[in-house]
């Protein structure tokens, strides 16, 4: 019981459950999952589908943050990916052919990889602070996306492309499958290999990691590439969701949501230890929060207030000070360390 209470993710999960309960109380079939033509439908499925792009972006962000960095350009990169994907499909002879769509996606992801390389270059080679390095692409990126779409909202009809955003496979929404696959992939890659530990060492103490022969530059660099790739994938999903490449609004402010998700999940912005499951919980909390606003019919003008209250509540409950107090009530008093570090 104590262990459970002290778990890092205890309060975020409580918040998540509370939101789900509130929704269910308001709308009893909130938890119901129906099948329609063999596809799963229902609020929860919707939630997962809508949360998929955010999860992708947040996964990349988690890795970047673990190295003490931050990537503000994710939204712009997503917009670029969507713009490239849809513009290519629109221009192709046969928009409905899977081959066209495959090429479009490959092209978009390829460009995103280049953008990631660019970010990584600014951070690792030129040594520009990550927040500014990625701010450059955040600003310019939407311009590039608009340049690609000519300032229009490109609209296309292409069934295979649309499937990326709204399709089903084995009864499950394709975006959910993609996001889950990426999550599992990243988890395996970081936890089954030594990648996770090495990234964390770079985040905790860069000089020490360097002396230990960790190729900090290579790792940091690739983390930005990964982040851009995942953002690109998210961008394709966002574009496919409405089949429109909206250079201005696709993935707008997604960087803030992603960072928030990462932090709610218990990964510190100071770098170091990261938690992928935490990020997943964070994403679910944020996505459920947005849905709750609609479900409960909260007025648009108080929506930000509502969000602020929930975020503050989760953060305070998670805070060491409050946990210490809670723990103190349950156990014989412990030495309260005012500094985390000990000589």
């Amino acid at each position, binding site marked *: 019981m104590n262990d459970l209470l002290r778990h890092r993710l205890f309060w975020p999960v409580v918040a998540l459950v509370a939101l789900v309960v509130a929704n269910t109380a308001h709308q009893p079939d*909130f938890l119901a999952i129906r099948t329609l033509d063999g596809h799963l439908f229902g609020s929860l499925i919707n939630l997962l589908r809508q949360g998929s792009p955010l999860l992708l972006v947040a996964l990349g962000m988690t890795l970047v943050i673990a190295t003490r960095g931050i990537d503000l350009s994710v939204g712009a990169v997503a917009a670029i990916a969507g713009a490239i994907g849809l513009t290519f499909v629109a221009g192709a002879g046969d928009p409905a052919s899977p081959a066209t769509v495959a090429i479009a996606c490959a092209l978009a992801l390829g460009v995103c990889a280049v953008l990631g390389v660019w970010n990584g270059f600014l951070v690792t080679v030129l040594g520009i602070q990550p927040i500014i390095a990625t701010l450059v692409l955040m600003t310019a990126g939407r311009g590039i996306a608009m340049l690609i779409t000519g300032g229009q909202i490109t609209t296309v009809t292409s069934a295979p492309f649309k499937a990326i955003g709204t399709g089903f496979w084995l009864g499950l929404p394709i975006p959910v499958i993609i996001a889950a696959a990426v999550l599992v992939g990243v988890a395996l890659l970081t936890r089954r290999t030594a990648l996770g530990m090495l990234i964390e060492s770079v985040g905790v103490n860069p000089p020490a990691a360097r002396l230990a022969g960790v190729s900090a530059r290579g790792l940091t660099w690739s983390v930005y590439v990964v982040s851009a790739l995942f953002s690109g994938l998210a961008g394709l999903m966002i574009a496919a969701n409405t089949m*429109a490449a*909206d250079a201005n*609004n696709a993935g707008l402010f997604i960087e803030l949501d992603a960072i928030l998700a990462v932090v709610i999940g218990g990964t510190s912005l100071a770098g170091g230890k990261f938690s992928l499951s935490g990020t997943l919980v964070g994403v679910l909390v944020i996505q459920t929060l947005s849905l709750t606003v609609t479900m409960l*019919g909260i007025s*648009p003008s108080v929506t930000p207030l509502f969000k602020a209250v929930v975020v503050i509540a989760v953060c305070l409950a998670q805070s060491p000070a409050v946990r210490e107090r809670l723990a103190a009530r349950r156990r014989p008093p412990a030495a309260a360390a005012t500094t985390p570090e000990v000589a």
Partner: protein
Amino acid sequence: ACSSGSSANTADNGGDDTITIGFAQVGAESGWRTANTDSIKSTLTADNGFDLKFSDAQQKQENQIQAIRSYIAQGVDVIAFSPVVESGWDAVLQEAKQAGIPVILTDRAVDTDDDSLYESFIGSDFVEEGRRAGEWVSQNLGTEPINVVELQGTTGSAPAIDRKEGFADAIADNSNVTVIDSQTGNFTRAEGKTVMEGFLQAHSDIDVVFAHNDDMALGAIEAIEAAGKVPGKDIKLISIDGVKDGMTALADGKISYIVECNPLLGPDLAEIAKKVVAGEPVDKRIVTKDEAFDQEAAKAALPDRKY
């Protein structure tokens, strides 16, 4: 030497009657805005006797004020702009007035006590747009009890406030029409879709969607279709703007009615600007001719729709 910004611009002080016009655009936040920009850029050309200085404020009032100040410093002949916000322009407009540069507003009005700060306003009436949408709903669908959900524009923006108000006004005396929910979809397709998905979860009895712009309506269509319903039949959609994608959906019967909000302000602006520079009197308020379309009208209009 180059200290006084208001010194005459060298480009047009000879016999040559090119008009230097500084245009401060809001941004490029939507397809509508891009069409608006295109119209202005393609009308105010050198061939038509204009030297256009164009700037994009990226949706920020401070950038727009900055741009106007800079136009004053550069000594243009006319300043035109689409204000991001209604209020807060007195100071900079005063500066323009002192420098003797006439100002023309497009698309959105400014809220000021001093009418002399600008020459003319060209644009639509957002309240009227909302009212027309509301009237259509009330007359055509409100013959039996219906539930309406509203997809609002960006919270606090003038079009969102005015369209909501106009719509509410128009349906006020029809007890059949009830707005059961209203959320912001931020004028974007993606959010329009997300919010509509939420609406569909939260309410099983939606008859009509009123979207403050076409993009949100298009997003809502996606959501309705994904939920296995037929837009235009099970749920009817009304929206405002009349961009090409919206008109296509209207022609396909997915949207039932669109109130136009005409972005092609270029020709009007050119005409007014010439008059203002020539010192001729102009109307203080020029409301653009906005049409409204149903399916038939859309089919007819679509082939030569430019934006």
